[in-house]
């Protein structure tokens, strides 16, 4: 059956690469739809929620596009993939922009990387955390299928999520601190890295997401 994948467009950055990468992995009769309309998001079979930029701007954009309810609804009712800022805004509160209230889907905060931290080579760790880092799976998940543990994905961010419930962490990554680079609960999966920019590993993750039929939900 043809699937309909909605990529949520709320004016925060370029969604073209996310849509293109999804088009690359879906079946021929599947549809990838970039949309800011709540009705289209609710009608879709699955939802991808990307995002970049600052936390406060993201929250304002979500609100201005009247997407709060559609987002929370989709996050509870169908396969949902958050990417980068689309992961961070699911938490309660971010340190960014002198403090920003988030969507509060998961207890826990979004923190800035410690300034002045030193890496294994004795050099200062640069912020943003930019480049290809390893993702350590904390357990099995359908989205990790055919992806070796500790594969590298492309990251670019200065803040990381610190969930209060450790069991939602699906993967961790080390950069001065060990942080949650993927989290999962029921039909929701969210990643700090950019699968759409992470070559084979990223495309495999998107391939898995498009075909994911979570049993623990709905």
């Amino acid at each position, binding site marked *: 059956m043809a699937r309909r994948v909605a990529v949520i467009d709320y004016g925060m950055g*370029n969604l073209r690469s996310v849509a*293109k990468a999804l088009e690359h992995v879906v079946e021929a009769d599947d549809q990838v739809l970039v949309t800011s309309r709540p009705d289209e998001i609710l009608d879709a079979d699955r939802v991808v929620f990307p995002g*970049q930029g600052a936390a406060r701007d993201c929250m304002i954009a979500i609100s201005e596009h009247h997407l709060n309810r559609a987002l929370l609804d989709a996050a509870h009712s169908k396969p949902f993939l958050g990417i980068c800022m689309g992961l961070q805004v699911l938490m309660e509160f971010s340190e960014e922009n002198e403090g920003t209230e988030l969507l509060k889907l998961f207890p826990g905060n979004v923190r800035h990387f410690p300034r002045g931290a030193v890496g294994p080579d004795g050099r200062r760790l640069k912020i943003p955390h930019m*480049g*290809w*880092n*390893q993702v350590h799976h904390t357990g099995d998940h359908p989205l990790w299928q055919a992806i070796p543990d500790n594969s*590298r994905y492309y990251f*670019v961010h200065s803040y990381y999520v610190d969930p209060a419930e450790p069991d939602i962490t699906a993967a961790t990554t080390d950069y001065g601190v060990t942080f949650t680079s993927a989290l999962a609960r029921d039909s929701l999966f969210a990643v700090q890295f950019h699968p759409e920019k992470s070559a084979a590993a990223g495309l495999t993750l998107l391939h898995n997401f498009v075909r994911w039929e979570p049993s623990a939900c709905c």
Partner: protein
Amino acid sequence: MLAKRIIPCLDVDNGRVVKGVKFVDIRDAGDPVEVARRYNEEGADEITFLDITASSDDRETMVHVVEDVASEVFIPLTVGGGIRVADDVLRMLNAGADKVAINTAAVFNPEFVKEVTDRFGSQCIVVAIDAKQVSGEGEPLKWEIFTHGGRKPTGLDAVEWARKMADYGAGEILLTSMDRDGTKVGFDLALTRTIGDAVPIPVIASGGVGNLEHLVEGVQEGGADAVLAASIFHFAEYSIGEAKRFMAERGVEVRL
């Protein structure tokens, strides 16, 4: 552990990849999509396109190049050359670029960097710095910013300038030594190290790579977060894969 990035750089003129313009007129033009695809398959961590088109009419061509590459190559893409106003940045991002490199426009109007990092986010703004050593023998090392391919001095101290650009929100610095560019004798390691120590953001070393040892030096002695090279990859002296295996053997963390 975060990997050091290897970034091949492609000069693009009117929609075609141009090889070796600095040396001789070998305009063995390739299709940017083909070249980008090959580099991606070899394991490039990012690809940088430098738009060397002289006429602004032809800049629209670059937008289509970025669109075509971004539809097929799923690694980060940076575009530089001729970025003067915020709308240039927007057009490149909308076409599928992940980052935009700004050089001359930043020198003429530093506030431009603030404007575009505020609007689009630091993560997508790279400030490209062309620096030349101006200290004489026996003097403390000093580098100055040059524009117009290293011909025009600006009076700006490279270290102060890099700090200012980081303060203004740049997400990364692409640092080219004009003394070394095209020489194949290796990076200016003192410059790379000095700038890298001065700023909290990642630094890409560029200019002077002639062999794989130079890439290792850039990381291990220069402290670069990423190394950029053009000719050693274009002329198929080395593949990206060979470069990465060599660096891994020498103890550099890379994505294999």
